[in-house]
């Protein structure tokens, strides 16, 4: 089984710890690094070459949408999955327009994260807002 290398970027260490503990349940998922702000996230994406970057939208120094745009320009094979508190169709559209393939809301992240990682690592779209059923579209 191919390993999915994952970079976690969120300014709350407790959230990163929670994401890590969920990801550890899935064999084949490896967390290769963590970042606590947007600039650090970009630097680590370039140096660690993950398959998937899990991003928060609101981060210090450079927000997640900007990180996504820049990362996708520089590293087109890198896929981005947003895990965010913004339970908003508008924000989700902006995230997808910025080049993300996945968007899940933090309140349901424990439920949706593994499915989202699986889809996004296969370059497929996965979105889930609390008001809508998860959409594992292509």
């Amino acid at each position, binding site marked *: 089984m191919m390993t999915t290398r994952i970079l976690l970027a969120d*300014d*709350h*260490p*407790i*959230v*990163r*710890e*929670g*994401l*890590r*503990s*969920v990801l550890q349940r899935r064999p084949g998922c490896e967390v290769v690094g963590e970042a606590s702000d*947007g*600039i650090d996230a*970009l*630097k680590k994406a370039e140096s660690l070459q993950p398959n998937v970057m899990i991003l928060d*939208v*609101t*981060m*210090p*120094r*450079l*927000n*997640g*949408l*900007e990180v996504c745009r*820049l990362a996708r320009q520089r590293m087109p094979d890198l896929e981005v999955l947003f*895990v965010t*508190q*913004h339970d908003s169709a508008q*924000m989700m559209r902006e995230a997808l327009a910025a080049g993300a393939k996945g968007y899940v809301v*933090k*309140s*349901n*992240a*424990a*439920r949706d*994260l593994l499915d989202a990682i699986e889809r996004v690592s296969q370059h497929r779209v996965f979105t889930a807002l609390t008001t809508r059923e998860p959409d594992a579209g292509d």
Partner: protein
Amino acid sequence: MKLRILLADDHEIVRRGLCALLQKHEGWEICGEATDGREAVEKAKELKPDVVIVDIGMPNLNGLDATRRLLQYDPNFKVIVLTVTDADQVIREALDAGARGFVLKSDAARDLVAAVEALQSRHMFFTPRVNDLVLAGFLEKGHAASRSEPPQLPTLTPREREITQLLAEGRSSKEAASALNLSTKTVETHRSNIMRKLSLHSIRDLVVYAIKNKIIQIEMPMDSNHGAAKVSPPSQ
């Protein structure tokens, strides 16, 4: 005997992170989890944990009101409040509610273990900013004797605060009644009392009041730069 901890946060991913952090400590165990304030109070009564960790911003019953309820039920409960903000008002309310620990979520990975250890040793744990505020409060009291006290703002009863939260979260009187096991008529009576006491004229006013007084929390509105100043990306 292990120290038993109850976690209350509406985000499972945060609870997973807290569990992972706290369970590294030998001698501690997570005896239960709750997803809102009401459940936190019920589980605390049932499980009798040594320490209760509550997020302030929870639906149904927020963390501060849950803390008040717990301590009214049993003043021996030891509660640590977790919050995204250390605004003066929030700190005051947490202290008034009887919390013995106050930790910022952004610093939880650093401070929460120390906070639990402090409560385990029957001490309190507050961030330096809270300590500063408490000290400033003591100093101000010393100067206040010569000043006339400002008029007291009307305060809500615990039940009225509960109903304020549910209504501000968008529930109807009927839904609030169902959540609280009251009749709709009773909720509507409380609602009228709340509006009259606080001189409010609409649900919108109630929502604004609830936000200002941290009865409910909202996500920060995103500006056009989505919450962070744009900076130049690292050069190649």
